[in-house]
């Protein structure tokens, strides 16, 4: 691992601070400084993605298993073929082959996602809602039940939201909005802490103000 020299560290702090200010200039309006930082950010991230994809995906999962030797794995040819089908989109007469790869990709992921949704969301949420009325929970269990019922009623699409259904779903919307309000406040606090972190970097690491 290469050691960072003090000059290198100083240069890094100045570049980071400069780019932070260039991005912050967007608060005023779109300007050439922001455009420069944006283009640099995009270019660096694309370069990073390209290198990352090669070393973490293509080399270990394609090249290594297809190199003759102890680790040779002929099964890898199947996804490689499907990948090549996607690349063939650039040849109009063969572009139809890409649909085959997409069908496998989407169907495979849907097959993985549906059981995960049942196990990860549906079952735990329903199981946790079935809480008994006890002396300790008598006041909260009915509120949770009411919230769940009314909110689910809001997400009924084949019923017109009029009359009783309309009134119940409106109560559901109130529950949803209360939860969004709480989530909003929580997330804004997290964002403010990110801003504080950046300001601390500018004031203490860059400008060297006493901490």
């Amino acid at each position: 691992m290469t050691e960072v020299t003090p000059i290198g560290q100083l240069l890094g702090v100045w570049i980071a601070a400069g780019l932070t200010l260039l991005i912050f200039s967007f608060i005023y309006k779109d300007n050439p400084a922001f455009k420069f930082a944006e283009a640099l950010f995009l270019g660096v991230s694309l370069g990073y993605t390209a290198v990352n994809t090669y070393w973490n995906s293509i080399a270990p999962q394609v090249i290594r298993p297809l190199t003759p030797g102890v680790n040779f794995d002929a099964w890898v040819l199947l996804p490689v073929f499907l990948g090549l089908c996607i690349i063939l989109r650039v040849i109009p007469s063969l572009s139809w082959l890409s649909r085959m790869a997409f069908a496998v990709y989407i169907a495979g992921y849907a097959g993985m996602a549906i059981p995960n949704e049942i196990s990860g969301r549906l079952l735990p949420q329903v199981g946790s809602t079935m809480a008994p009325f006890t002396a300790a929970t008598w006041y909260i269990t009915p509120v949770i039940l009411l919230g769940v019922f009314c909110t689910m009623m809001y997400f009924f699409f084949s019923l017109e939201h009029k009359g009783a259904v309309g009134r119940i779903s409106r109560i559901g919307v109130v529950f949803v909005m209360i939860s969004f309000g709480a989530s909003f406040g929580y997330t804004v606090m997290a964002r403010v802490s990110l801003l504080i972190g950046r300001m601390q970097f500018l004031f203490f690491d860059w400008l060297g103000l006493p901490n």
Partner: protein
Amino acid sequence: MRSLDLTNTRFCLTALLLLSLVCVLAPHPARAQSPSNPEVTDHPNDDGSAVILSFGLAGDELLELMPQVQIEGVWHDTETAPVLLSSLDKRSDHPEIYGWGVTDGNAELRPDDYYVPISKYVTVGEDGEPSVVPVSPELGEFAVRLVVDPAGRAESHPAGSVQATGQLFNRNMSFRVLLAFLFAGIIMYFILAARRNPNIFIRRIAGLEAVDEAIGRATEMGKPVLHINGLDSLATLSTVAAVNILGRIAGKVATYESDLLVPCFDPVVMTVSQEVVKNAYIEAGRPDNYREDNIYFLTDQQFSYTASVCGIMLREKPAANFLLGYFYAESLLLAETGNTTGAIQIAGTDAQAQLPFFITTCDYTLIGEELYAASAYLSREPMLLGSLRGQDLAKAFVMVMIFLGTLLSTFGSEWLSRLWTPL
């Protein structure tokens, strides 16, 4: 002389007494007790890559000794190196292995409360080097014993031996399979019903009513429509829903002869989006207006993508922004920038943490499942309509289950709530 001897004797006796007192009163290291009832069994509902060693601990003091407890095992006539136990699981915390019958041992430690799953063990080769070997059905039987305090060798009885076997079906998943078949059956039935009679009612979804208005406004102003498919891959259901809606939006954009920009976060989503938009233009009878270059990949790094899309919003000034799919922390940055440009914004996501930001900054927001319902609402295709009706019935089923489960739990029967607890 004599008096001196007496003094010495008294001194020695006093010292002996004090020493005895110190020995009695000094804290003893916990006595090494051997774990009781050790038993080695096959790990149920697995692929044959683990066995379970269960045993009891007599008291709390033995828990303190855990760092000194070792497993010694024999695997297929090969002595394995002792493995130090670093953690223990309680049987009552793992109904997926021991069922719901095991009560919580917190109040009173039972002799068979603890267990440790063994999926790997250590052998020492002829060269003296230890190597980690995974448990495998091919390797024969595994016999183990526990040793507490290796110096004092407080050993348990041999735990017996077991052959690791793999099971074809995980019985813990039975209820999930049943639910999947039940819901699939309901949805299939309603799809078939919708094919016979496609006039299925769907309630008004405000955000989708505004799609025509937003695209019409963009056309009148001569500005493009911007569509973002979220920041996830096609493995996310909301991305699939967003791409479906993109097809409907592209069809209307093609009809109005407006421009559509789709900067993508994922290369596969980009390729599918190109295909979907191309088909929409062909179906609208405007294949010549389709521009593949307008659906492009930016980057798959979250904030560089966000900075770039914000730049597009400010420079191209789209009149309508569609932010549909799965979003993360960038949701507010995108929606706020779009808001400052004066565009009509229609957002939709099932990312609960991001919905509040869309609600506060966008003109219309599709909340959670409304995003999935949107493509059925826009297309009126029998298959999508039928599946939406089927999902409603499945929701009604879940509501009834919640009501019954709560009622039964209140009266002391836990079987329904346990049925809905994933193992």
